[in-house]
């Protein structure tokens, strides 16, 4: 595994621990991780960390931070993170959310758009696609889901570093924790909130970038247009020949878009 740039921190929120990872110095950029857990340390983060302070909270119940029973929906989780932002003085931070983490960021924006400086959603869950269905995380082993998350694992240089690259007993357990908690929060309706499209109507003047791979086999790209329409002024960047992980499949292009958006 490449040299890891993260430093792990723990804070107390409401009497229980929340772990988060930090890298770099500068303006804070929040990163919300996906449904399989925290995937690791990659080139795109290394490059962004040269200019920004990256903050990646480890979602409660996903294996590191303890589960909070009161959080029973992604909307509850969004409210929890809003409280974290206030407590930590991270209000106004830019946020980038991937897949499940994108859904959390979108729910937060729908609850209080003023808490972010900008919003970046990378192939977010949360809206039911009009064509195709969100891939079922519980119909097949996690490795199948992971393999389907890029268009071509052979053509994705950092694919082998995802989640440590080997299914050790520890990683098996982390996958089980993460997917169990994702399932607990979003079993039905599956990985979407039917009200989210309308709730996003509250968002005004929040610079928003939506990034989506046209060959996404996890969250069909048909949901991209709905997200764009739901969030006033949102820009949509579609990546050709790309699956669910544009940040790893087309890192250079991804960084170009992100850097322009953050500045």
């Amino acid at each position: 595994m490449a040299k890891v740039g993260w430093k792990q921190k723990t804070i107390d929120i409401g009497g229980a621990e929340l772990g988060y990872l930090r890298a770099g110095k500068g303006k804070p950029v929040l990163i919300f991780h996906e449904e399989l857990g925290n995937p690791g340390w990659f080139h795109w983060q290394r490059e962004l960390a040269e200019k920004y302070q990256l903050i990646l909270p480890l979602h409660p119940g996903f294996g590191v931070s303890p589960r909070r029973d009161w959080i029973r929906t992604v909307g509850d989780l969004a409210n929890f993170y809003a409280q974290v932002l206030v407590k930590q003085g991270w209000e106004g931070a830019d946020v980038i959310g991937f897949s499940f983490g994108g859904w959390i960021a979108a729910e937060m924006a729908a609850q209080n758009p003023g808490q972010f400086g900008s919003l970046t959603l990378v192939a977010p869950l949360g809206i039911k696609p009009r064509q195709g269905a969100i891939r079922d995380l519980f119909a097949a082993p996690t490795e199948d889901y992971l393999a389907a998350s890029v268009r071509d694992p052979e053509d994705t240089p950092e694919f082998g570093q995802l989640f440590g690259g080997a299914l050790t007993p520890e990683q098996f357990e982390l996958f089980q924790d993460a997917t169990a908690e994702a399932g607990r929060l979003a079993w039905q309706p599956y990985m979407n909130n039917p009200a989210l499209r309308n709730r996003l109507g509250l968002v005004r003047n929040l610079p928003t970038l939506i990034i989506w791979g046209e060959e996404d086999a996890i969250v069909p790209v048909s949901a991209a247009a709905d997200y764009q329409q739901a969030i006033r002024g949102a820009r949509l960047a579609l990546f050709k020949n790309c699956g669910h992980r544009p940040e790893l499949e087309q890192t250079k292009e991804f960084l170009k878009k992100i850097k322009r958006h953050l500045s």
Partner: protein
Amino acid sequence: MHIATFTERPYSHVPEEEVIRNASFFGVSNKFLDPVKAGALFNRYLDEKLYAEELGFDGVMLNEHHANPFTLGAVMDVEAAILARITRRVKISLMGNPLPVADPLRLAEELATIDMISGGRLVTGWVRGAGCEQIANNINPTYNRERFDEAHDFILQAWTREGPWRYEGKHYEYRHVNPWVKPIQKPFPQTWIPSLVSPETAVFAARNRYSYMALATFLPPTMEMWNLYADTAAAEGYQAGPECFGYLQKIVCADTEEEAQELGRNYVYGGGQPAFARPEWMFPAGYNSKAATRRLAYALSDPETNEAVVSGKHSSSGVDVEATRRYNNEVLYANLQRNRQVIAGTPETVLPKIRHILETLRPGIFSIWHIEGGSTTHQQSMRSMRLLAEHVLPQMREWAKELDLPGPDEVSPGSRKLPPSGQRDPVCDPGAQAA
């Protein structure tokens, strides 16, 4: 001793190669189901239950699985209701109702109805349901245990509290609980808890003074669970006895040894019980406790490389159907007989093996998982049951007297006092196992 009969009631016409290719009964397409043939099978299985009563068995036992040719009975309570009407004497034991996937109020009504129609012959059994039952019913696996506990408490209240009343729980809410059906048995039907050696279940059964029904599990871990049950019982202030323990065993009898051996192969049709469902469906994330998940993670990993050896990945194109069929018929079948998971023979040859189980486990309930599936015919099933009833059951009843193995109808589970010393007596005999 209570002696019951059981079968999974399979859709025996499911093409074996489809099950083998899928490495699992669960998940095989229902395009292979012919409702006319399935209807005939349902009637055959009901006839066999009637025949069991005629032959002198004490009980007929049903179970429930969903979306699975391994068991046609996805709506077990419907079959139980028919049996309530067409049988006269036998106990009807349901092993069991998967509480987390049910609507508890509706279930309380169904079971009360069955108990009333049968004149109080229902035995209820509560289960969490395998992982695939959660998937087939779209029930969140992470709330499986909570839903089980809450539904169990609610159903007992629905049967015993005078209505109408209002219920507001975490997973269920009812604004008007006042069922106009109630069990005849008071305060509620006799209960056995079926289990595949899960410690939590043994403790749950002992605390509630329910009998514990081990479903064809190996003898050593079964004894561990019975000791755990007995320890829990002692902590609760009572001595566990044979009435607290039931055992399910696959037994097939025929007139000749060769015939029995051939017939017994139907237990491994498609891979038999081990091919019930693939791991990702048996243990969806969140279904097991964290401790059980950790055990599973290490159980599936190579201790030298630390990597998963059973990744769960499955590709039907990689399956050699003929080789698997041969393996099932030769190696698997021989293994199942060697470790006594399957007992096949003439009455003379099966009896000593049954005696061995009775001496070792000392159960007060014994259920015979009679032959089914594959090419088994109705006549062969009936013949096996008849041989068992005429030559095996009378001997078992003698032995039950000799070994003092009362069932839950003779001694109420939880009613025995601890010895004056306060130290509980043994509940099984590992020495018999060694011998």
